[in-house]
């Protein structure tokens, strides 16, 4: 019985409302603590029912709240199963830590309460999305997440780059939303309802392969927008313009996980569309590869992390594409921990360096910020896939399941392995450039360790980054069993031979170590190595994807808008309005001349008209 589950949504939502209206009166640190407290309470509420799933005592439940649009099977109802429980834990848990961190990080911001109101709104939207029991309600959460991300990315809207980044995120997401919305229409046309339970139980009988492919591909367009897959990933690097904790929130706990979660939720439909599975897997692998290649050469610490997020999302999508839903969601979970940690650590560094984000001007921070150094080190090893940190287990499982599919999937596996090498390389580059070597700080920069509200989240996340992997080792697949009720009726990738897994794991580990050692030797010298040459240039320019979209889509769009504004609006529409107005005025000016003010002239008119009328009547009457 989890009837009280709506509180998980209500608390952060209430926090958002209170902070929006009374934020200024509540004051600087208090409004932040309030926001943090409410999210923490949300998390605490959800813990006992989640434990119920772990111990096996709890059942999947649908909690009816109130009838919303009964006609289309869209009630305000919550679906509580292991998948939504897990997502709730991640979103509220990691979210609460990021709130706590923000209390210290945002301390000198003028619009402090507003920031926390948006942060709470983000958590509430994400919870609506995660707990929804039908596609329509999920869509509400989906759109709210887009709105919250827009508000937070462009939080410092006086900076033109931040305002533009917010708009870009919103517009690119709209393209994805289009796919999601059309998918909803097809779903409704096929099933006559939006309800998850009904759709997933009847889908195998009702759905033809063609319709299933159409629905899932459209859903994937939506997921690609939110989860930053090729080619809709372009909004994510720009989203770095927001405050750093926001980046952590978007990249770890919320927003980008939405797409992966939505596909996992629709696993039944994706199982019925093998073609879509291939598309999803290939797009995921390509995204992982391209983003990792770009991450190699970025010098802005947040940009490296942004591209690494895209790359890791590619892994998750690859896992889900090959039918390894549990593995994909597992990577989502571990990634939530270590990526939140990396971003918060980066935020801590940026805070200490007085806003400097260029890694070329860092270095030697190890002594100055020991906690940040240690926790970031853990995250670095985890994302690089070093045994026994969490990233190793989750990344490895995806690669193993891809490998196990055989055939063309060997290529995807090889791509994944190559990306693991790149990941280890660029993460080591980031770590070494930031913390080791000689200081390359600008004059007047005095790095210092961050306040406790910022280091505590780092330590907590660090703990999970180290330990989260053990819940799903090949020897003990606790995590997979935990999620099993959510993927009932979905064909699982076949269970893998332990010996094969050991071999694959060793290969991945060797690759990761090669990447780390190679990068370490290259960057730990006294001088930074020159990164020139054709490939470095191209990578630094992100392969010109942004410019390509700018030239091919944005510029023509801007030209079309210009035409509409200058020609269509100013000439045609305004011309019509002015023409009609002017015409009427000219006619009435002419008619006004008839009104002479001379009574006798009116009388004359009446007399003449009367005479004419008399003759007309006589004529009509047949007098002549």
């Amino acid at each position, binding site marked *: 019985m989890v009837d009280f589950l709506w509180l998980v949504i209500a608390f952060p939502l209430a926090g958002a409302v209170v902070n929006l209206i009374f934020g200024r009166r509540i004051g600087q640190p208090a409004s932040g603590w309030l926001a943090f407290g409410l999210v923490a309470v949300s998390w605490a509420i959800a813990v006992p029912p989640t434990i119920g799933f772990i111990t096996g005592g709890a059942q999947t439940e649908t909690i009816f709240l109130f009838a919303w649009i009964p006609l289309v099977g869209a009630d305000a109802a919550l679906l509580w199963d292991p998948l939504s429980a897990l997502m709730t834990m991640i979103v509220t848990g990691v979210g609460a830590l990021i709130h706590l961190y923000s209390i210290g990080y945002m301390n000198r911001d003028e619009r402090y309460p507003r920031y926390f109101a948006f942060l709470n709104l983000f958590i509430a939207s994400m919870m609506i999305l995660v707990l929804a029991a039908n596609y329509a309600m999920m869509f509400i959460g989906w759109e709210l997440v887009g709105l919250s991300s827009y508000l937070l990315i462009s939080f410092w809207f006086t900076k033109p780059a931040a305002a533009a980044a917010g708009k870009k995120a919103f517009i690119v997401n709209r393209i994805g939303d289009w796919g999601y919305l059309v998918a909803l229409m097809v779903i409704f046309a096929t099933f006559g309802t939006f309800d998850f339970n009904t759709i997933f139980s009847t889908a195998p009988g009702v759905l033809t392969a063609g319709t299933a492919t159409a629905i899932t591909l459209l859903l994937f367009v939506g997921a690609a927008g939110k989860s930053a897959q090729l080619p809709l990933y372009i909004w994510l690097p720009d989203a770095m313009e927001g405050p750093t904790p926001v980046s952590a929130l978007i990249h770890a706990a919320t927003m980008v996980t939405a797409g992966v979660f939505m596909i996992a939720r629709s696993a039944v439909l994706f199982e019925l569309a093998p073609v879509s599975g291939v598309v999803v897997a290939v797009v995921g692998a390509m995204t992982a590869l391209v983003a990792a290649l770009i991450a190699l050469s970025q010098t802005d610490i947040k940009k490296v992390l942004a591209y690494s997020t895209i790359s890791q999302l590619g892994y998750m999508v690859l896992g889900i594409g090959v039918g390894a839903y549990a593995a994909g969601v597992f990577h989502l979970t571990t990634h939530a921990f270590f990526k939140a940690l990396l971003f918060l650590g980066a935020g801590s560094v940026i805070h200490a360096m007085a806003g400097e984000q260029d890694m070329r001007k860092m270095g030697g921070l190890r002594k100055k910020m020991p906690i940040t150094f240690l926790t970031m080190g853990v995250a670095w090893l985890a994302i690089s896939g070093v045994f026994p940190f969490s990233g190793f287990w989750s990344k490895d499982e995806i690669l193993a399941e891809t490998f196990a599919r055989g055939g063309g999937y060997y290529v995807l596996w090889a791509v994944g392995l190559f990306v693991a090498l790149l990941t280890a390389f660029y993460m080591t580059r980031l770590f070494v450039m930031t913390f080791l070597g000689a200081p390359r700080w600008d004059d007047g920069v005095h790095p210092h360790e961050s306040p406790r509200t910022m280091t505590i989240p780092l330590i907590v996340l660090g703990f999970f980054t180290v330990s989260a992997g053990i819940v799903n080792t090949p020897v003990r697949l606790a995590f997979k069993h935990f999620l099993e009720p959510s993927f009932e009726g979905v064909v699982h990738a076949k269970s893998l031979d332990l010996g094969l897994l050991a071999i694959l794991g060793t290969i991945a580990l060797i690759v990761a170590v090669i990447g780390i050692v190679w990068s370490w030797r290259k960057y730990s010298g006294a001088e930074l190595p020159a990164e020139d040459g054709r490939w470095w240039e191209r990578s630094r320019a992100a392969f010109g994807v942004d410019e390509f979209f700018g030239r091919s889509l944005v510029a023509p769009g801007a030209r079309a808008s210009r035409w509409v504004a200058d020609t269509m609006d100013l000439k045609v529409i305004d011309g019509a309005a002015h023409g009609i107005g002017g015409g009427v005025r000219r006619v009435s000016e002419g*008619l*006004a*001349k*008839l*009104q*002479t*003010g*001379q*009574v*006798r002239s009116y*009388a*004359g008119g009446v*007399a003449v008209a009367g005479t004419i009328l008399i003759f007309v009547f006589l004529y009509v009457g047949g007098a002549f």
Partner: protein
Amino acid sequence: MTLTITWFLFLAAGLFSIGLAGVLIRRNALVMFMSIELMLNAANLTFVAVSKELGLIEGQVTALFVMVVAATEVTIGLAIIVAVFRTRSSANVDELAELKG
């Protein structure tokens, strides 16, 4: 020589024409007013004559109504003319052209 309806109708037409001419030609509001009375009574004469000829009572009733309307109109009209005369010490309608468009 009997008095047929034609006589009455010619008389009415004559009176009406005189009235119309008076309205169109004269500038004095008071005289124009009297001309309008003339036209109204020409119409009354027509009503009564036709009523008598056709043996219908409606024409005579209508004539009575017209008289009532004419009487009320005279009171209002005269009041306006007196008011105008007071403010401008003239009853020349050509000077009352404030509503020119």
